[in-house]
């Protein structure tokens, strides 16, 4: 019965939602921002800390949301740590396109483990769940470089 749901709730998603690796706020951080989904009330806050080279040395998050948004936050943190702001923003744009069913495919090497979110494109009302933490990240990155 739930076979096609495995497209959405891939094991890695269920696993990350249950056992996050990057959850929690950072003790020392350079910026933080929150994003929320007014339609359902979910929200997530992201903290970022830059290293000496200006790259993202640490990323943390806290929030209340569904398995999709929690797993997305955790995998996002993993994906952007070590990137500079421009590369993180680019990753956010790519992720948005993936989640909305754009032309990028999930096996595009640029995605790595984020490819597991390709399935949300078929669940229009869940797309926002997946993109929510990325919205907070971009807000935390702010206008600068």
């Amino acid at each position, binding site marked *: *019965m*739930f076979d*096609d*749901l495995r497209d*959405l*709730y891939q094991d890695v998603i*269920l696993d990350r939602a*249950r056992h996050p690796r990057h959850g929690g706020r950072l003790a020392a951080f350079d910026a933080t921002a929150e994003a929320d989904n007014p*339609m*359902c*009330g*979910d929200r997530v806050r992201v903290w970022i800390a830059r290293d000496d080279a200006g790259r993202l040395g640490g990323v943390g998050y806290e929030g*209340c*949301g*569904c*398995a*999709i948004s929690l797993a997305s936050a955790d995998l996002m943190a993993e994906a952007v740590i070590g990137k500079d702001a421009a590369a993180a923003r680019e990753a956010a744009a790519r992720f948005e396109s993936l989640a909305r069913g754009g032309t990028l495919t999930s096996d595009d090497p640029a995605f790595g483990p984020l490819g597991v979110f390709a399935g949300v494109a078929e*669940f229009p009302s*869940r797309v926002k*769940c997946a993109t929510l933490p990325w919205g907070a990240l971009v807000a935390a990155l702010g206008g600068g470089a």
Partner: protein
Amino acid sequence: MNVDTRPAAADLSGLRADFPILSQKIRGLPLVFLDSAASAQKPRVVIEAMREAMETQYANVHRGLHWMSERTTDAYESVRDAVAALINAASREEIVFTRNSTEAINLVAHSFGRGILRPGQAVVISEMEHHSNIVPWQMLRDAHGIELRVCPVSDAGELDLAALGELLADRRVGLVSVTHMSNVLGTYVPARRVARLAHEHGARVLFDGSQAIVHRRIDVQAIEADFYAFTGHKLYGPTGIGVLWARRELLEAMPPFLGGGDMIGTVRFERSTWAAIPHKFEAGTPAILEAIGLGAAIRYVETVGYAAIAAHEAALTDHALAIVSAVPGLRILGAAQDRGGVVSFTMENAHAHDVATLLDRQGIAVRAGHHCAEPLMARFGVESTARASFALYTTRAEVDALAAGLHRVREFFA
């Protein structure tokens, strides 16, 4: 739940055939639509009434001297009589058509709020209000210097009448505006007691009847209300039409809300005068076709009968409370003595969205989120819930499907 005191469940299963949409399949599965509290499905008579109006008898109302316009005006205005009869209003002039409950409440917040209430007076709402009965009062507070007071609800999800009395004690409250039935907890508020309490303290009372009127007969005079608001699309009618009822003397004293065609007496650039009620509050071309659709919906509900609807839904709700609460890890919000057909719940280890998505995959439509009641979510310490809600066309088998579906969801996230 004291099942014994409930009337016997009416068998309404024959009515399902009146709702064309209910034979739809969702991903090959029969549709189990348990989201009627968000908006109900439409019986064929409603669909046909709107079609027929557009095909045989349509023109703009009130201003025409020709056959089509006269007939359309009659059809539109006769729905005012039907609404007045439905809620036992003292007269048809007390019925104002709006877009929905939200606009009805905003109308009161603007016209009564800015026109009659004075800065320094207070409005009381409750912790279990829909945003539509919170935000208009916040906007009034910020624009007009009205104090906003919030009446708590108990852990069982009932209005705390003792607290309400205290909030009213200084007699500075001009209006008590509370839901008649909670869209999250199902709680029915003891309307007449609330009205009397308000009146004893010099306050008017508005009931948000968006949910209440779907399940039980409402008599606005018997409950001693001053304002009553409801929305057509939850009462098996179309979208785009709602109702504000208010006592004549209030409507007459209140300044108009929107300005434009149909609500005027005479228009001069220096000064305009207003039409008599209810037209004073209906600016511009009204939702003519939607009123006609609402009229058909009211006739339908009256034909089925509120007694049968209430008995049927009470039985379904009792059954749902029993079998849904038996799902391990499931917590139901609210346990009011007097409740209507909505059941909200959370599930351990599964977010409401995930529950809803997994139910949807089984063809079962429930709502998940804050249900436009964020403060109530905060009151119960949750971010969101899943909610199943019942209509006259809901069957016991659908409630069973819900419970079975929830067991499967639990396994998925186990």
